[in-house]
């Protein structure tokens, strides 16, 4: 059979169209979508912080460091507490010595002596990983060593992390650091090893005032979900589009 170039191209185009059109009926799923359609995802862990209840005792930081074996006397920590002091002239001062591990016993803030009469308001804000719905740290990992579980918790594989630090740079909340012993990226895991056993996170258990709560956001009857649904709550730095899942009651505009 003799075939001209024109015939050949015609056949190819037709063939491509015939195969491509039915393929268009299929939808390409991202790995997460595919997993979600197979696995049962009845759990989405979220966190609730009531800043009105926090007194800055630092028990949560202590408990976290011991539970998760982050060397106690290093400045890096998976969770920390910040102290904010707003003066009557509008000036904001804040600090977090050793992540607030030993409480805030020094009246000096940012090495400044402050006259109590000048203070307009003061409060404490606990911080931890926001387990974002759209985590930039997972996006930028070059080897896929950090990943998001179906229940929303972002974890790091210590046996696979190359230690480039890109995820640390990508996190707008500064929750990541290099583990002083393993030298791989490290972060708060919502104590997932405890959650899966039906326990609370170490920081929640250590908090004497109930300022911290962890819950399943997919369960409408969960006390945490109830508060998030029915009360006025806020998240940190929503402008980055990360969709953080740690909610705060009484978040001040000064909080960074």
């Amino acid at each position: 059979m003799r075939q001209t170039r024109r015939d050949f191209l015609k056949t190819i185009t037709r063939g491509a169209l015939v195969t491509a059109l039915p393929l268009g009926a299929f939808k390409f799923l991202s790995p997460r979508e595919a997993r979600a359609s197979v696995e049962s995802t009845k759990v989405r862990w979220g966190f609730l912080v009531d800043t009105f209840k926090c007194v800055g005792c630092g028990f949560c930081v202590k408990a976290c460091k011991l539970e998760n074996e982050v060397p106690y006397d290093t400045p890096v920590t998976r969770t920390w507490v910040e102290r904010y002091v707003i003066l009557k002239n509008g000036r904001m001062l804040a600090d977090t010595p050793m992540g607030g591990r030993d409480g805030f016993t020094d009246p000096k803030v940012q090495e400044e002596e402050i006259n109590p009469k000048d203070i307009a308001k003061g409060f404490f804000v606990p911080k931890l990983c926001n387990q974002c719905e759209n985590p930039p740290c997972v996006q930028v990992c070059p080897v896929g060593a950090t990943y998001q579980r179906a229940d929303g918790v972002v974890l790091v594989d210590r046996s696979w992390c190359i230690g480039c630090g890109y995820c640390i740079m990508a996190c707008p909340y500064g929750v990541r650091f290099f583990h002083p012993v393993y030298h791989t990226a490290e972060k708060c895991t919502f104590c997932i090893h405890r959650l899966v056993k039906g326990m609370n996170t170490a920081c929640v258990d250590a908090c004497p005032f109930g300022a911290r709560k962890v819950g399943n956001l997919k369960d409408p009857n969960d006390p945490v979900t109830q508060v998030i649904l029915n009360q006025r709550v806020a998240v940190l730095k929503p402008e980055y589009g990360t969709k953080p899942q740690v909610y705060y009651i009484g978040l001040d505009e000064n909080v960074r």
Partner: protein
Amino acid sequence: MDVYVHGLEWTLKELFVYPNEFIYWSIQIVMYPYMTGLVAGAFVLSSLYHVFGQEDLKDLAKFALVFSFALLIVAPMPLMFHLQHPMRGMEVFFTPHFTSAISAFGIVFFSYSIIVATEIWFVYRKFFVEQSMALKGKEGLVNRIKWLIYTALTLGAYDISPEALHKDEKAIKILAGVGIPVACFLHGYAGFIFGSVKANALWMTPLMPVIFIMSAIVSGIALCMLTYIIIMEWRKFRIRTSKKPWEMTAEEVGGVELDLMRKTSKYLIGFMIAAITLELLDLVFRGYTAVKSWDILRSIIYGKDFVNIFIKQYTFGNLIPFIMLLLPRPTVKRLVIALSLVLFGVFMMRWNVVIGGQAFSLTFAGYMHYKIPVIPHNMQTFKEGVTGALVIGIMPFVLFWGINKIVPSLKYK
């Protein structure tokens, strides 16, 4: 295992900074875009001749091509020095996670290496064949080894008829043409690594890849010119001290051809203008739009990093060499000073991006200062200090010296 907090040793914190914030990306991450920039720049310079037929760059083109290969081998080394687990570095090639800008490194780097190596092979194929023929059957161990190397490098292609060589030239042209976008991509994506970090207010701009490419070409051309001048002057000096005046030929007395340098510096000036324009556009735009981060950025740009940005980078690295290159009747001395300043300026630009981007806290209410370790006292301070940077800086010249023994890129006419 050692217990240490990475970054603690060289980070000085001021005011309100999160507890986990340190200068995690130190001097090696300054060296990394600097080195890839030099690779891209050197390659673009050589392509100006091969693709666009800029005959005036013929002598420099061969040298620039071989030099860019030496630089290319060094380009991933700063990353290896920087990684906390360098032995796992290969994972980037084996399990790339494609939503990450760094994961493109494996593919871009390898495809680019193949292009450069293949182009060098086509440029030198005739030379390999000639060497292999000439050395065949010669006595002596050195000659035997040389013969083996060159015979292997011919890859069995011994046809050096005019038709075959013509085909070679065609292949070179295609490779150099394909190489330009790949070289720009190699460096543009290095800019993307920074420009896409939304958490960093200084880095996040879509202009970053373009700024990086322009300054890359500037630095690449400047380094090629400088190295060329130094090598040619050194040769001239050696010949003048070893030979009697009447034994020298006209070419040997010549040294640097200032005409060639004058023409090359025209390209350099063009790319410098493009780079500075983009950088200033970025700065003006940030100031004019003045979003939330501008207060802290302004205090860094016009305050803490003023000397680094406006004196070292813009004045010494751009303005002064710009004037020196524009002045008529260039001399070797003036060129050397101007080119060194250009290279210093591009280095400062990288520094101001990488270190400057970490000079302020994510709280926008505190600062971090990078105290670069000068004298190392452990592996960390060696790798991520002045010593580590010097090792990376010297490496391409050592490699070039070795590669140049096999593929001589600087020959007398």
